[in-house]
């Protein structure tokens, strides 16, 4: 048990997107809405889409995850939500990200698609793909910052989760 004795859990779910969902821009409303709620609830995670399906990892206090699942169940932007795995963890894979949508390379999208085709349900198979994409992305974001303080401030992950 960590996180002030309340425990920390992580889960991954898959659902069927009701609209186009290939880019962060196409998911920008979801990302924008999720952040203030997640920051308040101590939830962090990552969201992406593979072949018209949302794949999302969320982590946080168990009760808050239950609340979020309740809201997700009513969200008309997707259907057929299926929790692949839910487990207790000691630490977060996405500290500092209220919700992030990594820009995946085609090879990474393929990797996730294969895992889904194989009916894999374990977080340990999926999470590293997200984490690696985010690490690579951090470098791209910095490259594009041209050393400008303005941009650096906009591109750093949010600090809510640590507050």
């Amino acid at each position, binding site marked *: 048990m960590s996180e002030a004795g309340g425990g920390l859990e992580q889960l991954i779910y898959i659902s069927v997107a009701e*609209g*186009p969902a290939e*880019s*962060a*821009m*196409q*998911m*920008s*409303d*979801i*990302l*924008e*809405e999720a*952040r203030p709620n997640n920051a308040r609830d101590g939830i962090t995670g990552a969201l992406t889409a593979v072949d018209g399906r949302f794949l999302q990892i969320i982590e946080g206090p168990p009760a808050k995850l239950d609340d979020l699942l309740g809201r997700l169940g009513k969200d008309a932007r997707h259907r057929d939500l299926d929790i692949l795995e839910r487990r207790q963890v000691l630490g977060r894979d996405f500290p500092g990200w209220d919700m*992030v*949508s*990594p*820009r995946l390379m085609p090879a990474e999208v393929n990797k996730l698609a294969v895992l889904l085709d194989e009916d894999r349900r374990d977080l340990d198979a999926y999470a590293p793909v997200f984490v690696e994409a985010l690490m690579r*992305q951090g470098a*791209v*974001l910095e490259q*594009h910052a041209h050393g*400008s303080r*303005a*941009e650096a*401030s*906009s*591109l*750093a*992950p*949010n600090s809510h989760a640590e507050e």
Partner: protein
Amino acid sequence: MTARILIIEDEALVAMELRFVLEDLGHEVAGVAADARTARNLVRETDIDLALVDIHLSDGPTGVDLGRDLARDGVTVMYMTANPGMVRNGVPGTLGVLSKPTDERAVQTAVDYALRRRVGEPVQFAPPELQVFA
């Protein structure tokens, strides 16, 4: 027609995608700001033709007033938000609002339309995704 464009967006990945889309069109992205103060400083320091302004920024729902001020400074302002209701009645001096979620093609056509309007080119039809204020 190429332009100097400022992206005001606190979602880092969305900002990055916007940058790629705009650079593919041949535009210069003059900066990315995640909050109103940074955006105002950038506009003070450099010439900007067009600003894409998210309404909810890292310092709160500051985009509405920010857009109004930038328009007063001669910048063409197009809001991009998941909450278009906040500017439903229009904001003086600004061009319009593009609702999120959006995609690459909608951004391209809306930016093209905004820049044509800026230089006074006659444009008959606004792209359907863009709600034009005036």
